[in-house]
């Protein structure tokens, strides 16, 4: 997957770059508005991450140019301004998703995967990890070809873990992904723990070899190796 990151804050750029590299993605960066316009004008990407507030211009214009030149490219706006206008206008201009800063890197990865799946495979792409098979479009999970009934939340949780396989996920990243703003109220860790336990139980009951590892004091990891 080839991704362009348009972001002026160097440290944040470095983090995102490193994290996406770790996911095996090819990432290019643009530091300001002219660079973003040049790169999006010349090259084609699977997905572009655009900050709205850029030196020498607005990320919204980058979105506009991308939409006319490369309609197939997935666009995610990452903005710290948090003003509603930007979100609405960005989506109106044709951005596919909006992620407010500060965000968890695993959340960004999950959204990127979902976006590219939607754009390139029309959402119809199975994720197969040995005996486990997920069809995100239908919220369907199978173990050894046998359907596992999961709740919506359990499915979201599993998809989030799978999208970030082999990475350590902090409890707060998971909680925020699953419960959104209510994550605040869930800070009793055992709620996430029991949620995770139920998911693992449902899957292992169908003969799945548990690949979810607890990382002591920090969170969880879905391992494939």
């Amino acid at each position, binding site marked *: 997957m080839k991704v362009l990151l348009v972001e002026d*804050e160097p*440290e*944040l750029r*470095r*983090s*995102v770059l*490193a*994290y996406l590299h*770790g996911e095996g993605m090819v990432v290019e960066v643009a530091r300001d508005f002219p660079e973003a316009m040049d790169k999006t004008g010349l090259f084609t990407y699977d997905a572009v991450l655009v900050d709205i*507030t850029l030196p020498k211009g607005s990320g919204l214009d980058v979105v506009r140019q991308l939409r006319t030149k490369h309609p197939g490219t997935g666009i995610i706006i990452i903005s*710290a*301004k*948090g*003003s*509603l*206008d930007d979100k609405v206008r960005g989506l109106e201009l044709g951005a596919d998703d909006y992620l*407010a*800063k*500060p*965000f*968890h*890197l*695993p959340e960004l990865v999950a959204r990127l995967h979902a976006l590219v799946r939607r754009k390139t495979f029309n959402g119809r792409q199975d994720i197969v990890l040995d005996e486990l098979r997920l069809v995100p479009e239908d919220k369907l999970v199978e173990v050894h070809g046998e359907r596992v009934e999961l709740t*919506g*939340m359990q499915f979201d949780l599993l998809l989030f873990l799978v999208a970030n396989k082999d*990475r*350590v996920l*902090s*409890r*707060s*990243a998971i909680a*925020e992904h699953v*419960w*959104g*703003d*209510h*994550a*605040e*109220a*869930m*800070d*009793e860790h*055992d*709620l996430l723990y*029991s*949620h995770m336990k139920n998911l693992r139980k449902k899957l292992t009951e169908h003969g799945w070899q548990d690949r979810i590892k607890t*990382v*002591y*004091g*920090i*969170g969880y990891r879905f391992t494939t190796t």
Partner: protein
Amino acid sequence: MKLLHRTALNHLLLAIPLVVIGTVAGHYAVRHAVNDELDEQLQHHAELIAARLAAGESELPAEAPDQFVQVLPERSTGIAFRDTLLYNAAEEGVIPWRMVRYPAVGVDGGPATVVIARATVEYEDLVTTVALVIGGLLLLVFLGNFLVDRWLNTRLWRPFHNTLDQLAHFQVDAPRNELPRTGITEFNAMNGTLNAMMAKLQRDFTAQKRFSEQAAHELQTPLAVMQGKLDELIQMPELGELEAGMIEVLYRARERMGRTVQNMLLLARIGNMEYAAAPVDWQALFQDQAALLAGLMERRAVHFQLHVDKRCELRLHPVLAELVVANLLRNAVQHNHEGGSINVRIGSEGFVVTNSGPTLNVDPERLFERFTKGDPSSEGSGLGLSMVKEVCDNAGLRLEYTEAAGVHTVVVHRTR
């Protein structure tokens, strides 16, 4: 009542008594004049007859259908006029007459009274006609006046109505046209003042909005950097228990700060009225938020019930509606006790959230203030309920909290 209708009504209320009084007064004035004239004629006639009597002529003028003359051998003290009713053959009925009694000396030298009467039927008709003409003229004058006034008012008040129209469509975040100059000084003054007010409102709005955007950018960017580094950090192999503990604390602090910043910016935006109202599916909203909190409710064995009496018509921006519902439900779960309950009732004019729970150690009056927390060590931002309050105040909704015997009730209702 419209200004125009109010003036018209006042005109009418004034015109009716004036026309009536004018007609009646006209009637009496004309009648008085006619009587004076008649009396003069009758007196002349009587003088003439009295002179003839004095000259020894006893022959009286022939009777006419509308006049009769009599000489009575009576003494009378002076000239007396009066109205009377007598039968008249020509009119075949009793009709009004004007009569004079005039003292004279009879042919025989004895006292005599000349009585002359004249029918006044045609004069009555005249009087009535004249009175009606007066009334009619008055009515015409009033009607004319009214129409001219109405036309003038419509014309004169047009700039005012234009101004009202533009004010009704004023939006603080949309471009606007200056209110125009008119030919009327008062309206010019009003439009000038309103122009200045709207310009200030828009300037303040833009400045406030720019400030909250800049503040957001300056606060959220470093938070994003922190978050990114933490997410990277936990990927390091061989993190010990000590490091894990510290990272855990950092994560929580980062989150808490992020929430506070986010909520404070949201509060600033609500105060700045950046959110336009729209219809809301409150039932779906409560169901969705309750589903998100289902895990927490289950763990605390809190029973949730949603009852919809009627579709709720309250309008709010979707983001704000979610904020209100999410905060109220979250509070209802958090401040509940094990095995408690939450009841939501939705009606057309608002909704009520009731929950069981221990009595708060916070003054209910202060509950909606910023940074008020039931438990000071709680990691909540203390801004949740104050945001609900701010949203309700700005949307013109009434927000009430009451507590009785461990039952907490929050009402969100349209204000009358």
